[in-house]
């Protein structure tokens, strides 16, 4: 008769004891212990089997062919997988501090414990409030008060209640007055970063409080403040509304920075995705690498953007400026405007004042405004250029391309010349600003712009004004534009 292993029963006893003890002493952190010490189970198991096999051997009993059966191996493999997963899960934040890559599955380890936070303190009417947030979102709103009021909750992820309680005691939310500063701190740096503590707060502060927010990971949502706001975080989304002071934002990583209705200057620095500035009375300066879309609307003072691929200066943004992955669109801006970019399509519409544009790769659509046009200087390396000029504008145009087709859709005073593989369009309509377009390689098109005419619209509308004078449009319209202008305009599209 073959001897049977004692390991099976032993495992049953061990699991039973484990759950029994866990139920009696809930404060012991079993999952944490398991994630750290599970390899010991393997070692003990292996030793038990080894001793067994040796004992059978020396007693002269028959030995099973394999020391460890197939079923056992399956269990061992499962143990390795789960053990590694638990270990990896509980140590993720410890090994990669500062980074928060959430993998669904990691967060399922442990339970979530919530602790409410309610605090208030008298601070005067014009305090300087420093927020020391670790992880977690904060919402700050200004009100007619001389108190700081905090409500919110602290969330601790732990395997056991007792452990969460300890963490909560180590890292309380506090309001501390230091000289003229009022510091609101979450004390999350006082506990091990693997504790996964996060604090979400709603704070009401006096309207004239200066806000200085610092955080590791969490959003800042600030509104109705009559003083300067400064935010510095490793990873944050920032939303600011109705600010009388200035705004300074410095982020290592962000999904969005949005500022609406700010009276002071706005300065955004760092890396992130989207930036959205709307109704800014001061200057706007944006520096850094942004992978999403940048939108600037209604900025009364100069806008400056220094990106990885593009640099932009605009004197006043009446309309909008949009900068996205492959496209830059300026709509109704006042110059002097300066833009330099690499590999982006550019569209500049209704701009007034001067324009200085340098681009490397990408198509360009230009449409100067009728009012107050300025000097235009454009240099492109590779890409098509479409220039829409107001029919009644006065200007002095020299547009050349070294290689590419040239098309003069404007007509009369402008004339086309071909030189080698490229060509140029030159002409003067009167005493007006200079327009210089120099393209290295790409098609060049000059045409008439009309109000309400989209620059990307097909050519037929260019000839449309000729229609009213032409015979009743009974013929199919596609035919008309071809014949009508030729009959009416004395000097048609020059060759």
């Amino acid at each position: 008769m073959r001897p049977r292993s004692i390991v099976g029963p032993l495992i049953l006893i061990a699991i039973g004891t484990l759950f029994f003890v866990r139920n009696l002493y809930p404060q012991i952190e079993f999952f944490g212990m398991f994630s750290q010490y599970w390899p010991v189970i393997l070692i003990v198991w292996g030793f038990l089997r080894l001793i067994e096999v040796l004992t059978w051997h020396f007693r002269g009993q028959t030995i099973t062919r394999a020391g460890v059966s197939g079923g056992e191996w399956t269990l061992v493999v499962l143990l390795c997988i789960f053990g590694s997963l638990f270990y990896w899960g509980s140590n993720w934040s410890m090994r990669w501090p500062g980074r928060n890559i959430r993998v669904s599955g990691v967060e399922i380890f442990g339970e979530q414990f919530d602790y409410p936070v309610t605090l208030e303190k008298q601070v005067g009417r014009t305090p300087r409030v420093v927020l020391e947030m670790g992880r977690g979102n904060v919402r700050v709103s200004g009100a007619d008060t001389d108190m700081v009021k905090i409500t919110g909750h602290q969330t601790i992820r732990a395997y056991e209640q007792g452990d969460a309680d300890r963490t909560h005691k180590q890292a309380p939310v506090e309001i501390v007055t230091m000289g003229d500063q009022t510091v609101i701190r979450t004390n999350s740096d006082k506990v091990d970063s693997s504790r996964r503590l996060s604090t979400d707060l709603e704070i009401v502060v006096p309207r004239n409080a200066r806000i200085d927010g610092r955080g590791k990971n969490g959003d800042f949502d600030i509104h109705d403040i009559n003083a300067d706001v400064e935010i510095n975080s490793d990873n944050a989304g920032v939303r600011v509304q109705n600010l009388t002071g200035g705004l300074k934002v410095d982020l290592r990583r962000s999904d969005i920075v949005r500022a609406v209705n700010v009276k002071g200057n706005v300065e955004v620095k760092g890396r992130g995705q989207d930036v959205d500035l709307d109704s800014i009375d001061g200057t706007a300066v944006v520096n850094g690498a942004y992978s999403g879309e940048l939108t600037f609307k209604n900025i009364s003072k100069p806008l400056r953007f220094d990106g990885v691929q593009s640099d932009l200066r605009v004197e006043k943004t009446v309309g909008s400026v949009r900068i996205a992955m492959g496209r830059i669109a300026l709509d109704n801006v006042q110059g002097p405007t300066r833009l330099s970019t690499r590999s982006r399509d550019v569209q500049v519409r209704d701009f007034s004042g001067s324009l200085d544009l340098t681009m490397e790769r990408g198509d360009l659509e230009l449409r100067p405004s009728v009012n107050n046009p300025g000097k235009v200087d454009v240099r492109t390396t590779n890409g098509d250029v479409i220039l829409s000029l107001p029919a009644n504008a006065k200007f002095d145009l020299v547009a050349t391309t070294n290689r590419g087709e040239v098309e003069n859709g404007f007509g009369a005073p402008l004339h086309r010349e071909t030189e080698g593989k490229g060509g140029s369009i030159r002409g003067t309509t009167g005493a007006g600003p200079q327009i210089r377009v120099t393209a290295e390689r790409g098609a060049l098109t000059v045409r008439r712009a009309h109000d309400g005419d989209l620059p990307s619209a097909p050519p037929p509308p260019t000839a449309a004004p000729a229609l009213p004078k032409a015979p009743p449009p009974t013929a199919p319209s596609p035919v008309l534009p071809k014949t009508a202008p030729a009959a009416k305009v004395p000097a048609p599209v020059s060759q």
Partner: protein
Amino acid sequence: MNATRNTSLMCAIRGPILMITVGTLFAIDHMGGPRFSSTWPAILIVVGVLKLLERVTPRAAQS
């Protein structure tokens, strides 16, 4: 008879020893030592050594 007994002993020993090796490597990993990803070849070495012993044992037993 003795030889076959010894061979089957070597066979039976292999599993437990392998298990202990894997457990030890993971334990070292979790205690902050070298990572399992760099120490795993030790398993191959252990398997190789056991295989060698298996071959050597019967002859030793016969002599």
